[in-house]
């Protein structure tokens, strides 16, 4: 039981990090990034190939690029960087003055094609079989702490990073930068006419969101030791989005609740506690059917989510003490 709980704790932290990152792009900036999962995948793959060591030898059963064995915190940084770079590249192509639904379709195309290419090209990240035997950080501790203890240690570490992510998201949350981003989301021409340059802001939010997503991918692969195209199908982005919209777009705690309900309570716990039905794989397929239905129900009955975006009141932004503030502009 404790083993499952620690596993789920790691998954939850990883999912939360990803959900907050996607919420920046989708909620604040209004960008329908259906290729979000690519940035998480980029982080996971890059973490794997810089932790696995050179291709060949012990890992001769799989082929991959680079192949280094960097000491622990470094692969995570590489993962974050990779996520950021992929997001930036994606953003440079797609963040154009395009109708929002067209843009969404283009993102989806990228997600599907990237999955096809990575699955087919064995030399890149070992194709559709994916990478396995990725070393866990400080795995020697497994002998001293036992597997259970090690799992809880990793969960704690992930939670700390997740809290770091939260403080970043909260810090950016009330800033002028975020407000300008939301303004450009609501009315691009109006924001530009006030001196805001939406193109730059959007690339920035793509980069930051991509870094967080890459980081989450790195944390995940460091824990489960394996990564393959099956782990990042386009529908994964959809699952994260379902959590965001169910909980409440642009509300950090709403995203928290929604992610817990969709990714953990629904996806993980049902898989754990419900008896296996039918042939192997049937329940997985059915889970996706239910996520689709859930999505429709949420946007029909509660489009603003369980915890709607909180109104920023003037009184919280305005200093009550100094009515004669100088006009320093």
């Amino acid at each position, binding site marked *: 039981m404790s083993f499952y709980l620690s596993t789920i704790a790691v998954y939850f932290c990883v999912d939360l990090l990803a959900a907050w990152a996607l919420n920046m792009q989708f909620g604040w900036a209004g960008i*329908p990034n259906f290729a979000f999962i690519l940035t998480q995948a980029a982080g996971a793959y890059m973490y794997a190939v810089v932790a696995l060591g050179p291709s060949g030898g012990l890992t001769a059963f799989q082929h991959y690029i680079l192949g280094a064995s960097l000491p622990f915190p470094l692969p995570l940084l590489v993962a974050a960087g990779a996520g950021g770079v992929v997001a930036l590249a994606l953003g*440079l*192509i*797609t963040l*154009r*003055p*395009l*109708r*929002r*639904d*067209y843009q*969404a*379709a*283009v993102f*989806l*195309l*990228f997600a*599907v*094609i990237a999955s*096809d*290419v990575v699955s*087919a*090209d064995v030399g890149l990240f070992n194709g559709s079989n994916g990478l396995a035997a990725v070393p866990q950080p400080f795995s020697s501790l497994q002998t001293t702490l036992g597997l259970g203890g090690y799992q809880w240690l990793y969960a704690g570490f992930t939670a700390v990073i997740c809290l770091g992510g939260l403080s970043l998201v909260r810090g950016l949350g009330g800033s002028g930068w975020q407000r300008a981003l939301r303004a450009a989301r609501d009315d691009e021409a109006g924001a530009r006419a006030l001196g805001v340059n939406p193109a730059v802001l959007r690339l920035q939010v793509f980069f930051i969101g991509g870094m967080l997503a890459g980081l989450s991918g790195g944390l995940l692969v460091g824990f489960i030791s394996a990564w393959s195209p099956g782990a990042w199908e*386009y*529908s994964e982005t*959809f699952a994260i989005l379902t959590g965001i919209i169910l909980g409440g777009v642009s509300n950090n705690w709403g995203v928290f609740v929604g992610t817990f309900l969709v990714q953990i309570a629904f996806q993980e716990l049902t898989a754990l506690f419900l008896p296996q039905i039918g*042939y192997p*794989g*049937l329940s997985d*397929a*059915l889970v*996706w*059917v239910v*996520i*689709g*239905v859930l*999505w*429709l129900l949420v*946007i*029909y009955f509660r*489009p603003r989510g369980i915890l709607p975006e909180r109104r920023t009141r003037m009184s919280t932004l305005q200093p009550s003490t100094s009515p004669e503030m100088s006009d320093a502009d």
Partner: protein
Amino acid sequence: MNSTILLQSIGFGITTAAVIAIGAMGFTLQLGVTNLLNLSFGNIMTLGAFASLIVERWHLGLVPTILAAPLVGAVASVLLARTLLAVFARRQNGAFELLMVTLAAGLIIEYTLDALAHLQVFQFQFPSGATVHLGPFVFTVLSLALIGAAALVLAALLAALHLTRLGKALRALSVDPKLARACGVPMRRMINLTWIVSGALAGLAGLVYVTNSLTISAGAGLNFLVLVIAAAILGGAGSPVGAVLAALVIGVATEVVAAFGGSYYSQAAGLAILALVLVLRPSTGMWSGPTRDEVTV
């Protein structure tokens, strides 16, 4: 660069283009009239292909096998529009919100099919017939039939759009639905007709796709949809001719890239063209912004 291989791959490319074009014409027609980017289109293609597969297993002959796909596609398409999409359009008819609904519908169809098909990939063999030499290109009878079918669909669509009163009404609808309604265009009937035609083309495209890939699984439609959407967006919403031209470009590009070593990247080549156009395109026309946000399903 080996010119025989190049010419051969261009020949393949034209066949691939025909396959893409049939789907892209259905997609673009429906996009133009309803203004809805329908991401469940690929799943309707899969439904059509599965319908043909089942009929083929019953050994009813070639004609019922071929007819099953467009029939099921048309029914599924109009059902989707009249039930799910109509319900959501009554509440919120922003183009983006409804796109999300079609994505969810597609997800539901895909995984329901997957569950029903026991996650299997089915073989679906078509006799490809004798090879035919046409100038520098080599075709099979089957691929010529596909090209012929695409040409026929294009001709029929163009004739219907430009020569009949119905087509005029449809074109009016795609430019300005409010004005068209005010001028007495029978909206409901027109739109249902659009869903039926585009659904039939989706089903047919699914079948045609299978004759090329020889296998069918629940997830197949989405991969193919990628090229269909790329062609439809590249060609301009609502333009069958544009869709066919874009399909030609994408089809030839994918096959040429596949022939010259990058078979992994053949689909990516199609997307690369779209990406390139996005980066370089002029900032005018339907590309540039939210010209018409409301959707009429």
